[in-house]
């Protein structure tokens, strides 16, 4: 038993290095995708202290909108790529409208309420989006228009370490796009005036109001940004499986990532994503069979919990101020 837990997995790693590489890669890719969802959370949390539960459904919603628009346009006789890009722009527009609505209807009346109340309000938003989304788009899964958006498909198979390791092109693209977005956002937060204002709002709505920061404007900006991140996430996840409401559950996977990296840290989202993604895959792959499999469902949380016991604010989160 002890052998199985402590030795055998490592023996396996050494014996089949190609599989180890493949596992690491898969971990990396899911890590990047988790990080993308987490990033949406972080954006909104950082800028308003709102823990946006609706981020998951925003991913589904934006992806469905994109596909929905595309279907309309291609039915109207536009060519694949044109239709896809027009749809993309229109979807961005829809996300903007959504951001405005959320700000107007939900956030503005709830300014300066406790975090948990705003958290709850985003549940309301989730319900509305589910109801609305299913009403408009129907419940059946749709195909993501990956190739129409010039996203690559197929895989690069590399012969190495005595085996064949295959890298999906779409995964490579996802990793690249996610990195670019994350670096951009991190810079934005640390270096710009608006970024600083965003952090101030997260700290205290009341004080931010008193120094003349326009919460309304800031919230629209942030929710729109989060909407765009959701759209990108939706495209990437959609390309891996289907676009359907089942995807919403995947958003839960972002929570340990978020906590591990720190709720307020953009780089934390990516580091957390990678740790969770890779840890989870390694755990399931090498240790899962010992426990009957399926440990992936909680393994991520266990990793996050361990890190938290060591650092209660996550790896990169703002310190929890305890002073009296």
């Amino acid at each position, binding site marked *: 038993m002890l052998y199985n837990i402590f030795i055998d997995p490592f023996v396996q790693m050494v014996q089949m290095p190609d599989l180890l590489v493949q596992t690491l890669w*898969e971990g990396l*890719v899911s890590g990047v995708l988790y990080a993308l969802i987490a990033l949406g959370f972080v954006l909104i949390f950082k800028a308003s202290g709102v823990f946006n539960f609706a981020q998951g459904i925003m991913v589904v919603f934006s992806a469905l909108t994109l596909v929905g628009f595309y279907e309309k346009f291609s039915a109207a006789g536009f060519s694949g790529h044109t239709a896809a890009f027009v749809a993309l722009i229109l979807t961005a527009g829809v996300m903007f409208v959504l951001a405005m609505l959320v700000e107007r209807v939900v956030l503005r009346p709830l300014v300066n309420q406790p975090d948990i109340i705003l958290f709850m309000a985003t549940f309301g938003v989730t319900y509305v989006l589910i109801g609305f989304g299913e009403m408009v788009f129907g419940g059946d899964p749709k195909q993501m228009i990956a190739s129409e958006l010039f996203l690559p498909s197929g895989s690069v198979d590399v012969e190495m370490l005595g085996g064949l390791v295959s890298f999906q092109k779409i995964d490579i693209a996802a990793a690249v796009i996610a990195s670019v977005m994350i670096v951009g956002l991190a810079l934005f937060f640390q270096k710009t005036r608006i970024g600083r204002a965003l952090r101030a709002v997260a700290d205290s709505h009341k004080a931010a109001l008193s120094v003349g920061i326009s919460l309304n404007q800031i919230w629209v900006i942030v929710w729109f940004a989060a909407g765009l991140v959701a759209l990108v996430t939706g495209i990437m996840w959609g390309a*891996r499986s289907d676009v*359907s409401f*089942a995807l919403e*559950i995947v958003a839960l996977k972002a929570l340990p990532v978020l906590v591990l990296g720190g709720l307020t840290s953009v780089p934390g989202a990516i580091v957390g994503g990678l740790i969770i993604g890779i840890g989870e895959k390694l755990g399931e792959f090498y240790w*899962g069979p010992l426990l009957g*499999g399926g440990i992936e469902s909680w393994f991520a949380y266990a990793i996050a919990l361990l890190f938290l016991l060591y650092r209660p604010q996550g790896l990169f989160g703002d310190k929890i101020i305890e002073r009296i």
Partner: protein
Amino acid sequence: QEESIYVPLFTYRTGPFAGSGTPIANGMHDYLTLLNERDGGIGGVKLIVEECETGYDTKKGLECYESVKPKKPVIVNPWSTGITLPLIPKAAVDKIPVLSMAYGLSASAKGDTFPWIFNPPATYWDGFTQILQYIATQEGGGIDKLKGKKIGYIYLDASFGREPLPLIEQLSKELGFEAKLYPVAAADMQNQSSQWLSVRRDKPDYMILYGWGALNATAVKEAVKTNYPMEKFISIWWPSEDDAKGAGDGAKGFKTLNWHAVGADFPLLADIQKHVVDAGKSQVSGKDKVGQVLYNRGIYNSMLIAEAIRKAQEITGKKAVTGEDVRRGLEGLNIDEARLKEIGLEGFTGAVKLSCADHNGHFSTFVQSWNGTTYEKVSDYIAPMSDKVGPLLDADAKAYAEKNAPWPARAEACDAS
């Protein structure tokens, strides 16, 4: 007041399983609507068909059950193993037969223990042995060819996917194959990369899939990605066209079990097209949906309901039959080729005959293969390995009754046919 028969349909057009639930709902609904539109119901009695949305959620399903109960339904079909389980003990008390068509508790095939539950035409256990036999023929021979083979089983980690586990355990010992289990939690339906990594490591000779909703589509995609040979990837009867389509050309050769035809080339379906779809009484999103696998599954389900009602009318001589009558109707169900022809479904499926003792029939199924646009039948009808499954089923039914003691002994008389 005019006489009528109340047939509630538990459906799910929303939630994570809507992709699979919608075509089934459409099929079930359209068939019964056709009977109303074309024939004025069954035996001259109008059917009141009403959908209740469960979202594949057990609690909502029970709520549906309670809300239809006062309206005296003659049958319920939960379309979820999870909803079926709590209904099993209730059925006898409420006198409402439960039709869990090819899902639910395998042991409920035992009519003596479960007089109110019906799960034709085959159980999940039957299905598993049918897949095994198909594999054996692929390997060029009898069931002994399985010896030394490695067979992977990827499944939804819920009661549905776990049903075959005891059987697998036993058969792998008896037949000498090695079973590899790849459970997929409901939350991870769309995120199966670890499971498929393990597949890559274990290199099973065959893969068997018991999935539902988005799990199927994702499994097929991952299999393609993993370069798993598609012709060796065989599923229980639940995947749809959409599930295979998403994976593109790579999915060609993906196989599933089935027991009825695909396509709309039947007089009955033509009638549905004419009386229901064209009349705007259907909810299908396009004409091409009529005839798809799960749509036809719904048709099959409704055919069983309708025939059971007809049989009940025949047995009792009443027109507005009740749940109790329909239970007898189901036990006496006998749809032979001739009757199928009458219905307008000649060649659609095999004959169905149930009895008081056997509520399932353990009928044969065949294997169909995805060709890029539709499923094609690629094997003969395969009978389940009843010699293996039978004793297990008996034992399980007994165990169920013991665990749920005091389990009522069958009190319902049998209309010996």
